[in-house]
């Protein structure tokens, strides 16, 4: 599997534009470790999996909403959809206590510096889900006041399409994030090993589901319920 290595201490290439950290594509760091030292490699693999398992099943979301998509996001938090099934029901009002942030809604130019500030206040490890067409690309708002995709300045882990995405789609996005967290390689401590963050390049959902989707040629008519 291919990984993206992110190093926090940017160096000069950061050239002061967000996102600041440096990224490069690399192979799975773990497999290299294994070749070097079988025992240490194995141990690190087990530890890393265990930590990731813990992380992905207790994701605390940041209570952050921008517009309409946020309503569908909160819907996912309430009884009929019950996000607690995925261990992500502990909504935090402070970015400092949260693990991930969902950009649920339109990213406005006036709001972008605020979003950046809030993101900076979240502690590592942290993740970002971009929810809805507006956050993904500006959506139907190609207009002077809207940033055409929040990834213009934030690193995004999962994109959830829709305007707004159904709560189920948000929950799927959450599970995809969990899957990718399971594959992550992060330093186990500040004294152990490489300090970079390795994020797995997860398979594209579009390609994965394409065959099944184009197989549907007949859609139900809206004449009956």
């Amino acid at each position: 599997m291919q990984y993206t290595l992110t190093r926090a201490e940017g160096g000069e290439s950061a050239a002061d534009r967000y996102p600041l950290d440096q990224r490069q594509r690399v192979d799975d760091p773990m497999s290299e470790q294994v070749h070097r030292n079988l025992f240490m490699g194995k141990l690190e693999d087990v530890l890393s999996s265990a930590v990731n398992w813990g992380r992905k099943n207790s994701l605390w979301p940041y209570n952050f909403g921008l517009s309409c998509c946020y309503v569908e996001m909160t819907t996912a938090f309430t009884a009929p959809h019950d996000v607690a099934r995925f261990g992500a029901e502990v909504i935090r009002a402070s970015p400092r206590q949260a693990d991930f942030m969902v950009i649920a809604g339109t990213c406005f130019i006036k709001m972008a510096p605020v979003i950046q500030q809030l993101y900076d206040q979240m502690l590592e490890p942290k993740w970002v889900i971009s929810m809805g067409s507006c956050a993904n690309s500006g959506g139907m708002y190609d207009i002077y006041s809207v940033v055409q995709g929040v990834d213009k300045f934030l690193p995004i882990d999962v994109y959830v399409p829709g305007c707004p995405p159904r709560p189920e789609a948000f929950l799927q996005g959450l599970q995809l994030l969990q899957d990718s967290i399971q594959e992550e390689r992060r330093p186990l401590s500040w004294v152990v090993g490489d300090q970079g963050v390795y994020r797995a390049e997860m398979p594209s959902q579009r390609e994965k589901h394409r065959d099944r989707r184009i197989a549907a040629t007949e859609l139900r008519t809206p004449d009956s319920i």
Partner: protein
Amino acid sequence: MTAADESLISNAGAAETPAASSADVVAELARQFGDGAVTPQTTLTGMPVIWVPRDRLRDVLVYLRDVSRPFSMLYDLSAVDERLRTHRRGLPPSDFTVFYQLLSVERNADILLKVALAERDLSLPSVSDIFVNANWYEREVFDLFGIDFAGHPHLTRIMMPPTWHGHPLRKDYSARATEFDPYTLTVKGQEVEQEALRFDPEAWGMQRQGEETEFMFLNLGPNHPSAHGAFRIVLQLDGEEVVDCVPDIGYHHRGAEKMAERQSWHSFIPYTDRIDYTGGVMNNLPYVMAVEKLAGITVTDRAKTIRVMMAEMFRINSHLLFLGTYLQDLGAMTPVFFTFTDRQKAYEVIEAITGFRMHPAWYRIGGTAHDLPKGWDKLVQGFVDWMPKRLAEYEKAMMDNAIVRDRTKHVAAFTTQEALDWGVTGPNLRATGLDFDLRKKRPYSGYENFDFEVPTAVNGDAFDRGMMRIEEMRQSVRILQQCVDHMPAGDYKADHPLTTPPPREKMLQHIETLITHFLQVSWGPVLPANESLQMVEATKGINSYYLTSDGSTMSYRTRIRTPSFPHLQQIPAVMRGGFVPDLIAHLGSIDFVMADVDR
């Protein structure tokens, strides 16, 4: 019906039609100010539209405000860049026109005043001392059109960031983000923007020091759990007491009015859904009705009734969201889980009928997107049967709850007069005791055929505003029941050449019909040059679309008047002297979404 319900009955039906008293206002003004001072314009807005010279504007406004049966509410104020408008025959020359819409509850009538401005002299006197709520509207015009208001207490940008250049609603300002350089955020830029957001009390004429205390300035928002979206309010505090506060908006400005100038009449419909985004198709209603006025389309009874039914579904849906979050802001965790369960039920109905949950964009010019599906009545009936016992439970478990009552009774109360002064409409106005509901006073889309009451309350406090929604849901359920029982037969769409999308059967005849169909679908219908306006009683108050057509496939100017904008403007007037927890209760009880404020 219970006794409590009966006490809420309003004197329905006694409404005088808006047009009746409009002629005499123009005559009155002409008599008062001389024929030269008032130039009437004929439009399809359903109210007198009068051009007044800039130097008489203030006198005319004062006169209308103080006349017997006064126009006591400044309902809307905005502007039009007229420089590219071609159909202006008979109108006074103008590069930029600022308009003032006044509303009279006593007359149940409106009047629209227009002031012509020349490009080299874009200034007019502020009227914020005549109508307090002109303050924000004038700032908005200043921000988006670059028109100066002499004597305004604090004329700064309101929608765009303070660091912005240009005035987006001018015709020579590009609409698309993709016409500008791609957005980047640099470390330097971040510092500049953050610094620009810093609140400066002196700039607002606020003291840092009281007689005995030093005030604390608390920044709440633009992201705060009880601010309901991207809304910021800066509090000047003396301990827990709110000495003063300054709401700061514009973090949710999606340029919907500019967007309308480049979408066809038809393709703008989805943008309306996203104005009051909890209101769904309720937003389509004023827009398509205003377009239908321009096009001269009469809608069938079935289409009208379907529209009413879906709009009321969304009213319930929006009020349920309100109720859950309102109680959550007061500290109750559970209600939101209950009300969202009901919302899920509502969505099952909405989705089965319209095919989408939040933003169905389901109304069309001339009717709806399609007919009701087979079996719709059972679905709606199921929802109608479900709701009443839930509402009874909410009332008992929540509104009878001692903590909720203590937190909200006599908190953030205002009188009817204050509400009118600030442009407050909808349930928040009715909570003060005035039964002004457009569905009764100026029935549209067939509301005159329904049997329902307009709930009112007495104190106009945070508690009443909460109760009001529960009562309104009951009435909406009644309306739904009548829709199920008496849904008219017939077409769901008017038979008219300008409806969208044009019927497919008419296309398949010969090449001419094919070409016409192609143009109607790709460019959309061409609407005759004129102006029209439609107000509706939306979920949060009165929402209206004021359309100016220049005889094209797109709107020349679309003014969207939303209820939440004045509701937020009123906050400081209500909160001065209150406590921080009262402010949170008040924010919860207003029922606003930021898209309904900033558009």
